[in-house]
């Protein structure tokens, strides 16, 4: 028990925790300003997520892509790169998977596996472009990957309209049954919630994330470049090659997320007028999770549940769902500016030190 308490009072845990609390407080203030009841809103949010099996299953569906994009953003962070383009890579993953799912005829399982791999590779290549431009031309990855988000969205729309969407419709044909990755038995148990193989795959990816970064030579190099590019270069590592590699792997995670979302949830891809948003939330997930695999899974759970529960908040308390965007961005802000959190925590931390003596 003592050890548990120790873990819970560690500063590395306290800061994200307080960032979350501050984020929720900002959200509550925004609700008060808008004339809503924040307590009712947050309560209905929790009820929506945990109220019944169906909604819980749907919340899991919402959480799954965030694990993928969280891993993607965190992987790049570990190499000192800010992959704000997980959004575009996610879209490319969806596109690759839906293309294989609709246009190819393959035996069951193999079809799904091929579709997922193609989706992941598309995401990886899309991120790799930003990595290459950073390594070879010195262009800041934030700007290129943001631009690639827009380009990716319009590119996907173009491919959809040109090849996959039946005339007069706004979405692609349904992928063949052989490519669908729904977890049918579990879905039946959860009252038809759209749960799929992407969830276990996401958890496996979290383990792979750990193994690559901490148990392989490649991962050692990637982290070294992230911590100190100059020292790494001096030690004989190629900083440029590691940048491209890190972005590629990062994009693989995001692309996987997109592929699983298409094959597991919707089974089609609609023409987009706005970004799906999973990539952006992935940034919050990675930051709140401290770029560690367990932290990311927990962070994805938190933000996925918040996003899913927002619908309940709208239903019971009338709060526009964008409120959750305010909460999530505030959390990102407070994690980035952890100095503010530390400053607010000062009395608590100082007290702890005294007691420790």
């Amino acid at each position, binding site marked *: 028990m003592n050890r548990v308490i120790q873990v819970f009072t560690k500063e590395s845990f306290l800061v994200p925790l307080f960032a979350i609390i501050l984020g929720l407080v900002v959200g509550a203030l925004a609700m008060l300003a808008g004339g809503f009841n924040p307590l009712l809103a947050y309560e209905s949010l929790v009820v929506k997520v945990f109220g019944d099996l169906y909604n819980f299953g749907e919340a899991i569906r919402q959480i799954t892509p965030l694990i993928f994009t969280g891993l993607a953003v965190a992987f790049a962070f570990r190499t000192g790169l800010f992959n704000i383009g997980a959004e575009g890579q996610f879209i490319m993953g969806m596109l690759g998977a839906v293309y294989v799912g609709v246009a190819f005829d393959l035996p069951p399982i193999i079809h799904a596996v091929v579709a997922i791999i193609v989706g992941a590779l598309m995401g990886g290549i899309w991120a790799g472009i930003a990595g290459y431009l950073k390594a070879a031309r010195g262009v800041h990855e934030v700007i290129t990957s943001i631009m690639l988000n827009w*380009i990716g969205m319009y590119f996907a729309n173009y491919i959809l309209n040109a090849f996959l969407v039946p005339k007069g419709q706004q979405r692609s044909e349904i992928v063949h049954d052989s490519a669908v990755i729904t977890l049918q038995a579990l879905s039946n148990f959860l009252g038809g919630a759209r749960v799929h193989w992407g969830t276990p795959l996401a958890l496996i990816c979290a383990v792979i994330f750990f193994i690559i970064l901490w148990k392989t030579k490649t991962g050692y190099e990637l982290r070294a470049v992230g911590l100190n590019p100059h020292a790494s270069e001096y030690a004989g590592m190629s900083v440029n090659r590691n940048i491209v590699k890190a972005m590629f792997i990062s994009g693989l995670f995001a692309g996987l997320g997109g592929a699983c979302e298409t094959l597991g949830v919707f089974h089609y891809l609609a023409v987009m*007028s706005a970004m799906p948003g999973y990539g952006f939330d992935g940034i919050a997930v990675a930051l709140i999770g401290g770029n560690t695999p367990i932290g990311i899974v927990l962070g994805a759970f938190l933000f996925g549940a918040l996003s899913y529960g927002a619908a309940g908040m709208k239903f019971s308390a009338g709060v*526009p769902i964008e409120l959750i*965007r305010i909460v999530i*961005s505030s959390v990102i802000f407070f994690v980035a500016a952890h*100095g503010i959190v530390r400053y607010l925590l000062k009395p608590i931390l100082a007290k702890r030190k005294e007691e420790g003596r």
Partner: protein
Amino acid sequence: MDWLVLGSNLIHDTIVFSTALIFAALGGLYSERSGVVNIGLEGMMVIGAFTGAVCTFFMQPFFEPGSVIPAWIGFVAAIVAGAIFSLPHAVASITFKADQTVSGVALNFLAAGLSVYLTKILFHGAGQTTTLTSVFSKWHIPGLSEIPFFGHAIFEAYPTSYLAFIAVAITWFLLFKTSYGLRLRSVGEHPRAADTAGINVFRVRYNAVMISGALAAMGGATIALTTTSNFSHNTISGQGYIALAALIFGKWRPVGVMWAALFFGIGQAAKSLIQILGLAEYVPTELIYMLPYILTVIVLAGFVGRTNAPAASGKPYETGSR
């Protein structure tokens, strides 16, 4: 089709679309010249567009229909809102030495969420404001607008476009001809030396970030009050980041930034050109929409000049550090 008319139209449209980029890129220039990276330009533009549109909307009933005064009130309100909205970024990156890129991105997301949230509250659940009746109309400069070719191209622009070019001149003068500019640049190049010389690094940076927010908001308000006549979630779609690209392409210099912004404006102006020329049948619309973003990537990739950034840009300053 008369090619002269076409060329004149292209320049005209380029100026229309570049105006917001010029404002925002100039905003970025103040901030980055003082040593604070401002990825948050996009969010500050969103806040500007939102405030501009909403204030104009609620001012409209107080003036006769079609009056342009509400639009000006909205524009000024946007400037104030932009300066205020930039404060969290300043506090985080200057006082609390946060990662400036992440803090800026957080601000962008906050702006996106906050503006739509407030829009839905103010407009009874609608995701966008009602179409504005009071918006800026183009000013024909007497005499000059009669000049063949250049008259229509340059002297029939929105008032905000003229303001943007004036802002370029003012920024150039401020930056290179006044002691304020010298302080700003020295803080961005070598804060320690500036501190030793008695300059308050923190104050200069706060100042610069707030100017940055005000200018970016002017850019956002320009879009809402000239081209779209309302505010919705996609009124600002990446222009803040394109403005950052213009800042880099323009080598952090006011006039260079202006040319870069004009260049990126062509990407958007080309949209309407393609439609006028009747090429829309042959070119998929999606590719046309992609154009400004592709142009930005290509230009940045083809442009090698990494050493131009202000030396201390992105680095928090700690008193006593070397």
